[in-house]
């Protein structure tokens, strides 16, 4: 269903793009078309919500005359295989984009593991990639905990990769701080899903929590294809005196089913994690035990940023579906605008259709970008100067009005009144400058 709807939206968006290109021809929209691609796991609700943000940004830009007279055409690629993201599929998609010279850049990918596979093939071609959601620090930072290095991914080429969200090395510590200082818990159990993302974020949480003086009762891991019953693991946490559970993982690895099973063993403590659990699917997996799931998101919450209110309201008009808006939709909107701005500057420099390298060079010069989620720069590695981590919590039995004013990340059917609501945010840029 999600996929079918995505196709319809995609077709509609393309038609709108063409229509606008035609109608604004007098205003200089007749220089031709350029293409922007995306590579996202469109089979997931989160991936689809990101694609919506990209489409919305492009629709807006085309409606106001396009990029320096060029009409932007969008083509979304899906990196889902068998229902969850696949790095191989992502690489295939990037190769398709590289094969079409009209593509001047892409938004995505959504998953860090996919980015790791894609950067090495995109970098030699100077193909700009801007991710709205990748949070693995190793993609841009050379940390001792990394199993690969950013300079190796780029193989001597100039940086072609940027991201508008901050990194897991902030996400994990933010939750550790929150649990230790705000919830005042000193003992936790940690569960990770054995993926690159899950192990990374759980590790950064554990380091920070121990540094603060907390105790990790037990750190367990599982693999999706091998586990359906987490009760024995949870029991060990419970008996160890854990006051909260921290999970490193994503909903497509069933990371939130343990939340439901905590109820089955009669254990009621907060269930916390990273952005991989800030999803509708996670609420659905919790299946009757939704409240008190805490999740971080490596970025400012657009709904809490005054400057984004108008963009969100306009987005909601264009994409009214209940799951159309997600935690990274505005990040995708910003990423797309940053890319289109860079293309615009490159058009001026080239005085015509720019090359990929020209777009890349302009993207690298981005300073003081005014996005929906704030005004920010990118450093030479590709990271944003906005180092905000938001914390959300699931509240159950919300009134319909409260559901509307929540993040919009709610469960489906029986859990449709259980939604993530914004709780607080940590600004690490401020903390470090103080």
């Amino acid at each position: 269903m999600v996929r079918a709807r995505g196709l319809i939206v995609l077709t509609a968006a393309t038609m709108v793009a063409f229509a606008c290109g035609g109608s604004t021809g007098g205003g200089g929209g007749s220089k031709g078309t350029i293409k922007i691609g995306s590579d996202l796991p469109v089979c997931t609700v989160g991936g689809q919500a990101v694609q919506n943000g990209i489409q919305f940004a492009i629709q807006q830009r085309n409606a106001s005359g396009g990029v320096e007279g060029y009409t932007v055409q969008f083509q979304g690629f899906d990196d889902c295989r068998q229902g969850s993201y696949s790095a191989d599929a992502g690489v295939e998609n990037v190769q398709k984009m590289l094969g079409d010279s009209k593509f001047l850049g892409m938004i995505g990918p959504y998953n860090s593991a996919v980015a790791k596979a894609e950067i090495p093939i995109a970098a030699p071609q100077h193909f700009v990639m801007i991710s709205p959601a990748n949070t693995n620090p190793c993609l841009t930072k050379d940390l001792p905990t990394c199993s690969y290095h950013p300079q190796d991914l780029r193989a001597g080429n100039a940086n072609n990769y940027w991201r508008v969200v901050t990194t897991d090395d902030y996400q994990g510590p933010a939750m550790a701080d929150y649990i230790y200082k705000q919830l005042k818990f000193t003992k936790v159990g940690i569960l990770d899903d054995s993926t690159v993302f899950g192990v990374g974020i759980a590790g950064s949480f554990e380091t920070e929590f121990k540094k603060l003086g907390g105790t990790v009762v037990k750190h367990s891991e599982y693999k999706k294809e091998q586990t359906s019953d987490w009760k024995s693991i949870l029991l060990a946490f419970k008996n160890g005196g854990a006051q909260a559970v921290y999970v490193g993982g994503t909903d497509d690895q069933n990371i939130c089913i343990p939340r439901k099973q905590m109820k089955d063993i009669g254990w009621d403590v907060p269930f916390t994690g990273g952005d991989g659990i800030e999803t509708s699917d996670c609420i659905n997996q919790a299946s009757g035990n939704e409240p008190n799931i805490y999740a971080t998101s490596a970025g400012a919450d657009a709904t809490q940023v005054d400057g984004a209110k108008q963009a969100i309201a306009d987005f909601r008009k264009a994409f009214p579906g209940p799951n159309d808006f997600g935690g990274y939709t505005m990040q995708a909107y910003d990423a797309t605008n940053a890319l289109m701005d860079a293309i615009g500057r490159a058009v001026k420099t080239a005085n015509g259709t720019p090359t990929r390298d020209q777009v890349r060079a302009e993207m690298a010069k981005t300073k003081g970008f005014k996005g929906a989620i704030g005004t920010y720069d990118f450093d030479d590695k590709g990271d944003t100067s906005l180092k905000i981590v938001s914390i959300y919590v699931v509240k159950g039995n919300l009134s319909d009005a409260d559901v509307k004013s929540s993040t919009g990340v709610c469960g489906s059917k029986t859990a449709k009144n259980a939604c993530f609501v914004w709780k607080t945010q940590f600004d690490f840029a401020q903390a470090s400058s103080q």
Partner: protein
Amino acid sequence: MSLTDYGFYILCATAIVLLATQAFTNPKDFFQVTIFGLADGAIYALVALGYTMVYGIIELINFAHGDVFTLGAYIGAAILAFFAGANEGSFVVVNVIALLLVFPIVMLIMGGINITIERIAYRPLRNAPRLAPLITAIGMSFVLEGIMFMWHGAPTVHFPDLLPHGPGFQTTIGGVFFGFKDVFVVVAAAILVSLLAVFINGSKLGKAMRATAQDRDAAQLMGIDINRTIAATFFIGAVLAGAGGMIWGLYFNTIYYNLGFRTGLVAFTAAVFGGIGNIPGAAIGGLIIGLVAAYSDGYIGSKWTEVVIFGILIGVLVFRPTGLLGMRVPEK
């Protein structure tokens, strides 16, 4: 007794001693984990029965069986959401009636589907080389997963939460927590397995099945309709898998399209463990695998659980190739 027998008994004894130590030092945890294991094991047992019955009669590892189990859960979820979706989480008489009605409906539907699968994918290949039906079985497995994928996509599917839980339906005895759900799973599985045992040992069709399993040609000479008997075997296997899927759904409340792959593999292991073709063996094998998985999750670490389960399988096959209770396959 041969040397391998000694090896087998030594392995068993070591495991029992280790567990007994745990039971002694921390009985609360031990019995809690045992309850988790029994509930999981009961479901594995229901699925394992389907594997073992089919293998016993036509020596086919029906790889699609795990997916038949999952499809049962999907169909059950759809029907239950339609009839009783509004009453989730509360204990009302309507839920009980809905469950009593939907259980047999799903079991019959799954039986019908499995007969169809047998007719399409296995019967035409009955006299083909052994590898051919094995491949079609793998194919059927992917077809069923594909159907469920098209139906609900990749995300997990919510199974209506109709079993009573919460205060009044849970209790703590000696520090061990268990609820109505845990009891329900074990009792429901026990009832189904007992009914199957009565049917196989007491009915004419059951006798025909045993005869066909022993020697197909001789059974045919005695006037047994082989096609009908084999179809009945698939039907009963799927009835149990369908019930297993329903029970899984009611217990875990979350299902996903490729759930059957892992569950099927574990259940198959349980069937081999108990002695393939041996019906009580499959039931006991399922329970033991469930317990082993729970103990491994609890005491060793869940990343080792699969290693432990399949390590045991290797151990059993090396020291006791016919499984715990002995193999029952057609005589050559």
